[in-house]
Protein backbone atom coordinates (compact mmCIF):
# COMPACT_ATOMS: atom_id res chain seq x y z
CA UNK A 1 0.00 0.00 0.00
CA UNK A 2 3.07 2.26 -0.05
CA UNK A 3 5.86 3.36 -2.36
CA UNK A 4 8.54 0.69 -2.07
CA UNK A 5 11.87 -0.19 -3.56
CA UNK A 6 12.37 -3.58 -5.17
CA UNK A 7 14.43 -5.17 -2.36
CA UNK A 8 11.83 -4.23 0.24
CA UNK A 9 9.04 -5.66 -1.91
CA UNK A 10 10.90 -8.99 -2.18
CA UNK A 11 11.57 -9.26 1.57
CA UNK A 12 8.01 -8.27 2.41
CA UNK A 13 6.64 -10.96 0.11
CA UNK A 14 9.01 -13.52 1.65
CA UNK A 15 10.64 -14.09 -1.75
CA UNK A 16 14.15 -13.36 -0.46
CA UNK A 17 15.45 -13.35 3.11
CA UNK A 18 16.75 -10.32 4.97
CA UNK A 19 20.20 -11.97 4.94
CA UNK A 20 20.17 -12.54 1.16
CA UNK A 21 19.13 -8.95 0.58
CA UNK A 22 21.95 -7.66 2.79
CA UNK A 23 24.41 -9.86 0.89
CA UNK A 24 23.16 -8.45 -2.44
CA UNK A 25 23.41 -4.88 -1.11
CA UNK A 26 26.97 -5.59 0.00
CA UNK A 27 27.79 -6.78 -3.53
CA UNK A 28 26.21 -3.64 -4.97
CA UNK A 29 28.32 -1.50 -2.67
CA UNK A 30 31.48 -3.27 -3.87
CA UNK A 31 30.61 -3.04 -7.57
CA UNK A 32 28.86 0.33 -7.85
CA UNK A 33 31.62 2.91 -7.66
CA UNK A 34 30.86 6.38 -6.34
CA UNK A 35 31.50 9.27 -8.73
CA UNK A 36 34.94 10.05 -7.28
CA UNK A 37 35.97 6.39 -7.23
CA UNK A 38 34.87 5.95 -10.84
CA UNK A 39 36.81 9.08 -11.93
CA UNK A 40 39.91 7.65 -10.18
CA UNK A 41 39.44 4.24 -11.83
CA UNK A 42 39.21 5.99 -15.22
CA UNK A 43 42.50 7.75 -14.50
CA UNK A 44 41.03 11.29 -14.59
CA UNK A 45 41.76 12.24 -10.97
CA UNK A 46 43.61 10.99 -7.88
CA UNK A 47 42.42 10.24 -4.35
CA UNK A 48 44.14 13.47 -3.29
CA UNK A 49 41.85 15.43 -5.67
CA UNK A 50 38.80 13.81 -4.05
CA UNK A 51 40.06 14.76 -0.59
CA UNK A 52 40.59 18.37 -1.74
CA UNK A 53 37.09 18.51 -3.20
CA UNK A 54 35.56 16.97 -0.05
CA UNK A 55 37.28 19.63 2.06
CA UNK A 56 35.92 22.33 -0.26
CA UNK A 57 32.41 20.88 0.15
CA UNK A 58 32.43 22.05 3.78
CA UNK A 59 32.21 25.65 2.56
CA UNK A 60 30.36 25.11 -0.74
CA UNK A 61 26.99 23.46 -1.07
CA UNK A 62 27.76 21.69 -4.37
CA UNK A 63 27.69 18.12 -5.63
CA UNK A 64 31.15 16.51 -5.87
CA UNK A 65 31.11 16.31 -9.68
CA UNK A 66 30.17 19.97 -10.15
CA UNK A 67 32.79 20.99 -7.61
CA UNK A 68 35.52 18.95 -9.32
CA UNK A 69 34.67 20.79 -12.55
CA UNK A 70 34.62 24.19 -10.84
CA UNK A 71 38.00 23.49 -9.24
CA UNK A 72 39.43 22.67 -12.67
CA UNK A 73 40.22 19.08 -11.65
CA UNK A 74 37.79 17.48 -14.09
CA UNK A 75 36.50 18.82 -17.44
CA UNK A 76 32.78 18.83 -18.09
CA UNK A 77 33.25 16.19 -20.81
CA UNK A 78 35.17 13.95 -18.41
CA UNK A 79 32.41 14.40 -15.79
CA UNK A 80 29.78 13.35 -18.33
CA UNK A 81 31.88 10.31 -19.29
CA UNK A 82 32.21 9.31 -15.62
CA UNK A 83 28.44 9.65 -15.06
CA UNK A 84 27.71 7.63 -18.22
CA UNK A 85 30.14 4.88 -17.11
CA UNK A 86 28.47 4.85 -13.68
CA UNK A 87 25.04 4.41 -15.28
CA UNK A 88 26.18 1.77 -17.79
CA UNK A 89 27.94 -0.38 -15.22
CA UNK A 90 25.41 0.04 -12.39
CA UNK A 91 24.50 -3.25 -10.74
CA UNK A 92 20.82 -3.17 -9.85
CA UNK A 93 19.50 -4.91 -6.74
CA UNK A 94 17.67 -7.56 -8.77
CA UNK A 95 20.83 -8.43 -10.70
CA UNK A 96 22.79 -8.54 -7.44
CA UNK A 97 20.23 -10.96 -5.96
CA UNK A 98 20.70 -13.25 -8.97
CA UNK A 99 24.49 -13.07 -8.56
CA UNK A 100 24.31 -14.03 -4.85
CA UNK A 101 22.05 -16.97 -5.76
CA UNK A 102 18.89 -15.63 -4.11
CA UNK A 103 16.86 -16.08 -7.32
CA UNK A 104 17.21 -17.05 -10.97
CA UNK A 105 17.14 -14.61 -13.92
CA UNK A 106 13.72 -15.97 -14.92
CA UNK A 107 12.35 -15.38 -11.41
CA UNK A 108 13.83 -11.86 -11.45
CA UNK A 109 11.81 -10.96 -14.54
CA UNK A 110 8.66 -12.46 -13.04
CA UNK A 111 9.08 -10.56 -9.76
CA UNK A 112 9.93 -7.31 -11.58
CA UNK A 113 6.62 -7.65 -13.43
CA UNK A 114 4.79 -8.28 -10.12
CA UNK A 115 6.57 -5.29 -8.57
CA UNK A 116 5.47 -3.03 -11.46
CA UNK A 117 1.86 -4.08 -10.89
CA UNK A 118 2.19 -3.47 -7.12
CA UNK A 119 3.60 0.01 -7.68
CA UNK A 120 1.37 0.98 -10.64
CA UNK A 121 -0.97 3.07 -8.41
CA UNK A 122 1.99 5.31 -7.61
CA UNK A 123 3.20 6.00 -11.15
CA UNK A 124 3.29 9.79 -11.38
CA UNK A 125 0.96 11.67 -13.63
CA UNK A 126 1.65 15.09 -15.08
CA UNK A 127 0.56 18.06 -12.98
CA UNK A 128 0.89 21.56 -14.34
CA UNK A 129 2.92 24.02 -12.25
CA UNK A 130 3.37 27.75 -12.84
CA UNK A 131 6.29 28.39 -15.24
CA UNK A 132 9.85 28.49 -13.94
CA UNK A 133 9.44 26.58 -10.67
CA UNK A 134 12.75 24.99 -9.69
CA UNK A 135 12.73 21.21 -9.05
CA UNK A 136 9.35 21.11 -10.80
CA UNK A 137 9.35 17.33 -11.28
CA UNK A 138 9.69 16.83 -7.49
CA UNK A 139 6.76 19.14 -6.74
CA UNK A 140 4.62 17.59 -9.48
CA UNK A 141 5.33 14.18 -7.94
CA UNK A 142 4.57 15.51 -4.44
CA UNK A 143 1.16 16.87 -5.48
CA UNK A 144 0.37 13.75 -7.50
CA UNK A 145 1.26 11.42 -4.61
CA UNK A 146 -0.82 13.56 -2.24
CA UNK A 147 -3.83 13.11 -4.52
CA UNK A 148 -3.20 9.36 -4.76
CA UNK A 149 -2.94 9.01 -0.97
CA UNK A 150 -6.16 11.02 -0.50
CA UNK A 151 -7.86 8.48 -2.75
CA UNK A 152 -6.21 5.34 -1.36
CA UNK A 153 -5.80 6.12 2.35
CA UNK A 154 -8.69 8.52 2.97
CA UNK A 155 -10.99 6.95 0.35
CA UNK A 156 -12.16 10.40 -0.74
CA UNK A 157 -13.50 11.60 -4.07
CA UNK A 158 -12.28 15.11 -4.87
CA UNK A 159 -11.64 17.63 -7.61
CA UNK A 160 -8.16 19.14 -7.73
CA UNK A 161 -7.99 22.75 -8.91
CA UNK A 162 -5.08 24.02 -11.00
CA UNK A 163 -1.95 24.89 -9.03
CA UNK A 164 -1.28 28.58 -8.45
CA UNK A 165 1.41 30.69 -6.77
CA UNK A 166 0.03 32.58 -3.74
CA UNK A 167 1.32 35.24 -1.33
CA UNK A 168 -0.96 34.25 1.58
CA UNK A 169 -2.00 30.77 2.68
CA UNK A 170 -5.78 30.86 2.94
CA UNK A 171 -7.04 30.05 6.43
CA UNK A 172 -8.69 26.76 7.30
CA UNK A 173 -9.66 24.87 10.49
CA UNK A 174 -6.14 23.50 10.99
CA UNK A 175 -2.91 22.84 9.13
CA UNK A 176 -0.32 20.11 9.48
CA UNK A 177 3.18 21.08 8.34
CA UNK A 178 6.33 19.10 7.67
CA UNK A 179 9.79 20.45 6.76
CA UNK A 180 11.78 18.84 3.96
CA UNK A 181 15.52 19.15 3.38
CA UNK A 182 18.18 17.56 1.19
CA UNK A 183 17.70 18.07 -2.56
CA UNK A 184 15.00 20.62 -1.66
CA UNK A 185 14.42 23.12 1.14
CA UNK A 186 10.68 23.40 1.62
CA UNK A 187 7.70 23.09 3.92
CA UNK A 188 4.77 20.81 3.04
CA UNK A 189 1.47 22.01 4.50
CA UNK A 190 -1.95 20.39 4.32
CA UNK A 191 -4.87 22.48 5.54
CA UNK A 192 -8.21 20.85 6.33
CA UNK A 193 -11.70 22.00 7.24
CA UNK A 194 -13.30 20.68 10.45
CA UNK A 195 -15.34 18.03 8.65
CA UNK A 196 -12.33 16.80 6.71
CA UNK A 197 -10.27 16.56 9.88
CA UNK A 198 -12.84 13.99 11.09
CA UNK A 199 -12.67 12.17 7.77
CA UNK A 200 -8.89 11.92 8.06
CA UNK A 201 -9.20 10.75 11.68
CA UNK A 202 -11.70 8.00 10.77
CA UNK A 203 -9.39 6.72 8.02
CA UNK A 204 -6.20 6.84 10.08
CA UNK A 205 -7.73 5.36 13.25
CA UNK A 206 -9.89 2.97 11.20
CA UNK A 207 -12.94 3.84 13.31
CA UNK A 208 -16.55 4.34 12.24
CA UNK A 209 -16.98 7.33 14.54
CA UNK A 210 -14.47 9.76 16.02
CA UNK A 211 -17.04 11.96 17.82
CA UNK A 212 -15.62 11.10 21.25
CA UNK A 213 -11.96 11.54 20.31
CA UNK A 214 -9.91 14.34 21.88
CA UNK A 215 -8.79 17.36 19.85
CA UNK A 216 -5.22 16.15 20.33
CA UNK A 217 -5.91 12.79 18.67
CA UNK A 218 -7.87 14.40 15.81
CA UNK A 219 -4.97 16.77 15.08
CA UNK A 220 -2.48 13.93 15.38
CA UNK A 221 -4.23 11.97 12.65
CA UNK A 222 -3.81 14.85 10.17
CA UNK A 223 -0.13 15.10 11.12
CA UNK A 224 0.24 11.36 10.61
CA UNK A 225 -1.42 11.54 7.20
CA UNK A 226 1.07 14.27 6.22
CA UNK A 227 3.92 12.14 7.60
CA UNK A 228 2.80 9.14 5.54
CA UNK A 229 2.46 11.20 2.34
CA UNK A 230 5.85 12.87 2.79
CA UNK A 231 7.60 9.58 3.66
CA UNK A 232 6.26 8.16 0.42
CA UNK A 233 7.33 11.34 -1.42
CA UNK A 234 10.85 10.77 -0.03
CA UNK A 235 10.72 7.16 -1.26
CA UNK A 236 9.59 8.24 -4.73
CA UNK A 237 12.26 10.98 -4.78
CA UNK A 238 14.96 8.42 -3.97
CA UNK A 239 13.83 6.44 -7.03
CA UNK A 240 14.38 9.67 -9.02
CA UNK A 241 17.91 9.98 -7.61
CA UNK A 242 17.00 12.81 -5.21
CA UNK A 243 17.39 12.84 -1.44
CA UNK A 244 14.56 14.21 0.68
CA UNK A 245 14.86 14.17 4.47
CA UNK A 246 11.72 14.80 6.48
CA UNK A 247 11.23 16.20 9.96
CA UNK A 248 8.42 15.17 12.32
CA UNK A 249 5.20 17.07 11.46
CA UNK A 250 3.72 19.93 13.50
CA UNK A 251 0.28 21.57 13.66
CA UNK A 252 -0.56 25.18 12.86
CA UNK A 253 -3.73 27.05 13.77
CA UNK A 254 -3.92 29.91 11.29
CA UNK A 255 -5.74 33.17 12.05
CA UNK A 256 -8.78 34.07 9.95
CA UNK A 257 -6.49 36.18 7.71
CA UNK A 258 -4.43 33.13 6.82
CA UNK A 259 -0.64 32.85 6.89
CA UNK A 260 1.72 35.19 5.04
CA UNK A 261 4.39 33.56 2.89
CA UNK A 262 7.85 34.27 4.36
CA UNK A 263 10.25 36.45 2.35
CA UNK A 264 12.48 34.55 -0.04
CA UNK A 265 9.95 31.76 -0.48
CA UNK A 266 7.61 30.71 -3.27
CA UNK A 267 4.26 29.30 -2.17
CA UNK A 268 2.39 26.93 -4.45
CA UNK A 269 -1.25 26.20 -3.64
CA UNK A 270 -3.07 23.09 -4.85
CA UNK A 271 -6.75 23.53 -3.88
CA UNK A 272 -8.59 20.24 -3.33
CA UNK A 273 -12.40 20.42 -3.41
CA UNK A 274 -14.14 17.55 -1.66
CA UNK A 275 -17.74 18.66 -1.16
CA UNK A 276 -19.69 21.83 -0.40
CA UNK A 277 -18.09 23.55 2.57
CA UNK A 278 -15.35 20.95 2.94
CA UNK A 279 -12.01 21.88 1.51
CA UNK A 280 -8.37 21.07 1.87
CA UNK A 281 -5.37 22.81 0.37
CA UNK A 282 -1.91 21.49 -0.24
CA UNK A 283 0.69 24.25 0.07
CA UNK A 284 4.35 23.87 -0.83
CA UNK A 285 6.48 26.67 0.61
CA UNK A 286 9.72 26.49 -1.34
CA UNK A 287 12.85 28.40 -0.37
CA UNK A 288 14.17 30.41 -3.34
Amino acid sequence: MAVKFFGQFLVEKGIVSREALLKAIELQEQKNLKLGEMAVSMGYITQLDIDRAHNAQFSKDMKLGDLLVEMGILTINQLNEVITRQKNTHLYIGEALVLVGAMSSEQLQQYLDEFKIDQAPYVSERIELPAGVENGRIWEMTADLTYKMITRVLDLQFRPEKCKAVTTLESNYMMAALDMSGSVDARYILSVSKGLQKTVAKAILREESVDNESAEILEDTVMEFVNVVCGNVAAKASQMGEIININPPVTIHPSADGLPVPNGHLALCFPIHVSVGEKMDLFLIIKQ
Partner: protein
Amino acid sequence: MKKVLVVDDSLSVARQLEKIINESGEFTCVGHAKNGAEAIKMNHLENPDIICMDMNMPGMDGLTALRSLVVLDKEVKVVMVTSLGGVGDKFTEALKLGAKNVISKPFESENVLQILREL
Protein backbone atom coordinates in the same frame (compact mmCIF):
# COMPACT_ATOMS: atom_id res chain seq x y z
CA MET B 1 1.98 -14.42 24.60
CA LYS B 2 4.77 -12.29 23.13
CA LYS B 3 5.13 -8.79 24.53
CA VAL B 4 5.37 -5.86 22.09
CA LEU B 5 6.50 -2.29 22.81
CA VAL B 6 5.25 0.39 20.40
CA VAL B 7 7.49 3.41 19.75
CA ASP B 8 5.99 6.26 17.73
CA ASP B 9 5.57 9.98 18.37
CA SER B 10 2.14 9.79 16.77
CA LEU B 11 -0.67 8.98 19.19
CA SER B 12 -2.86 7.77 16.36
CA VAL B 13 -0.27 5.31 15.00
CA ALA B 14 0.33 4.00 18.52
CA ARG B 15 -3.43 3.51 18.86
CA GLN B 16 -3.62 1.64 15.55
CA LEU B 17 -0.70 -0.64 16.37
CA GLU B 18 -1.91 -1.33 19.92
CA LYS B 19 -5.30 -2.32 18.53
CA ILE B 20 -3.81 -4.65 15.90
CA ILE B 21 -1.47 -6.23 18.46
CA ASN B 22 -3.97 -6.68 21.28
CA GLU B 23 -6.82 -7.91 19.08
CA SER B 24 -4.57 -10.55 17.50
CA GLY B 25 -4.73 -12.81 20.56
CA GLU B 26 -1.11 -13.73 19.82
CA PHE B 27 0.67 -10.63 21.08
CA THR B 28 0.15 -8.11 23.85
CA CYS B 29 1.16 -4.46 23.80
CA VAL B 30 3.09 -3.60 26.97
CA GLY B 31 3.46 0.12 26.39
CA HIS B 32 3.96 3.11 24.14
CA ALA B 33 7.13 5.19 23.98
CA LYS B 34 7.10 8.51 22.11
CA ASN B 35 10.76 8.67 21.08
CA GLY B 36 13.97 6.67 21.04
CA ALA B 37 15.13 7.65 24.52
CA GLU B 38 11.80 6.59 26.05
CA ALA B 39 12.02 3.34 24.09
CA ILE B 40 15.36 2.47 25.67
CA LYS B 41 13.98 3.17 29.15
CA MET B 42 10.77 1.21 28.54
CA ASN B 43 12.66 -1.70 27.02
CA HIS B 44 14.59 -1.96 30.27
CA LEU B 45 11.42 -1.73 32.41
CA GLU B 46 9.03 -3.88 30.37
CA ASN B 47 11.49 -6.32 28.76
CA PRO B 48 9.41 -6.80 25.56
CA ASP B 49 10.09 -9.57 23.03
CA ILE B 50 9.48 -7.25 20.08
CA ILE B 51 9.73 -3.49 19.52
CA CYS B 52 7.76 -1.83 16.70
CA MET B 53 9.52 1.50 16.20
CA ASP B 54 9.08 4.55 13.98
CA MET B 55 12.15 6.16 12.37
CA ASN B 56 11.17 9.82 12.18
CA MET B 57 10.60 11.06 15.76
CA PRO B 58 11.51 14.25 17.62
CA GLY B 59 14.33 13.90 20.16
CA MET B 60 16.09 10.59 19.65
CA ASP B 61 15.04 9.15 16.26
CA GLY B 62 14.39 5.47 15.56
CA LEU B 63 17.69 4.57 13.90
CA THR B 64 19.71 6.13 16.73
CA ALA B 65 17.64 4.21 19.28
CA LEU B 66 18.03 1.01 17.24
CA ARG B 67 21.84 1.36 17.43
CA SER B 68 21.65 1.47 21.24
CA LEU B 69 18.96 -1.17 21.66
CA VAL B 70 20.81 -3.88 19.74
CA VAL B 71 23.87 -3.29 21.95
CA LEU B 72 21.96 -3.06 25.24
CA ASP B 73 19.60 -5.99 24.62
CA LYS B 74 20.75 -8.87 22.42
CA GLU B 75 17.38 -10.64 22.74
CA VAL B 76 14.89 -7.99 21.67
CA LYS B 77 13.74 -8.05 18.07
CA VAL B 78 13.17 -4.64 16.49
CA VAL B 79 10.88 -4.00 13.51
CA MET B 80 10.84 -0.49 12.07
CA VAL B 81 7.37 0.83 11.18
CA THR B 82 7.88 3.94 9.10
CA SER B 83 6.66 6.11 6.26
CA LEU B 84 10.32 6.11 5.10
CA GLY B 85 10.39 2.34 4.47
CA GLY B 86 10.43 2.86 0.73
CA VAL B 87 13.60 4.98 0.88
CA GLY B 88 16.19 2.36 -0.11
CA ASP B 89 19.00 3.86 1.96
CA LYS B 90 16.88 4.02 5.13
CA PHE B 91 15.61 0.47 4.66
CA THR B 92 19.15 -0.83 4.15
CA GLU B 93 20.53 1.14 7.08
CA ALA B 94 17.86 -0.26 9.38
CA LEU B 95 18.60 -3.86 8.35
CA LYS B 96 22.36 -3.32 8.68
CA LEU B 97 21.89 -1.90 12.17
CA GLY B 98 20.02 -5.03 13.19
CA ALA B 99 16.33 -4.40 12.52
CA LYS B 100 14.56 -7.66 11.69
CA ASN B 101 12.27 -6.05 9.15
CA VAL B 102 10.84 -2.74 7.97
CA ILE B 103 7.10 -2.10 7.57
CA SER B 104 6.07 0.84 5.39
CA LYS B 105 3.25 3.19 6.33
CA PRO B 106 0.43 3.07 5.48
CA PHE B 107 0.31 -0.55 6.63
CA GLU B 108 -2.30 -3.31 6.58
CA SER B 109 -3.11 -5.10 9.86
CA GLU B 110 -2.47 -8.54 8.39
CA ASN B 111 0.91 -7.47 7.02
CA VAL B 112 1.99 -6.25 10.47
CA LEU B 113 0.88 -9.49 12.16
CA GLN B 114 2.50 -11.66 9.50
CA ILE B 115 5.85 -9.93 10.04
CA LEU B 116 5.54 -10.20 13.86
CA ARG B 117 4.71 -13.93 13.58
CA GLU B 118 7.81 -14.54 11.48
CA LEU B 119 10.16 -13.19 14.18
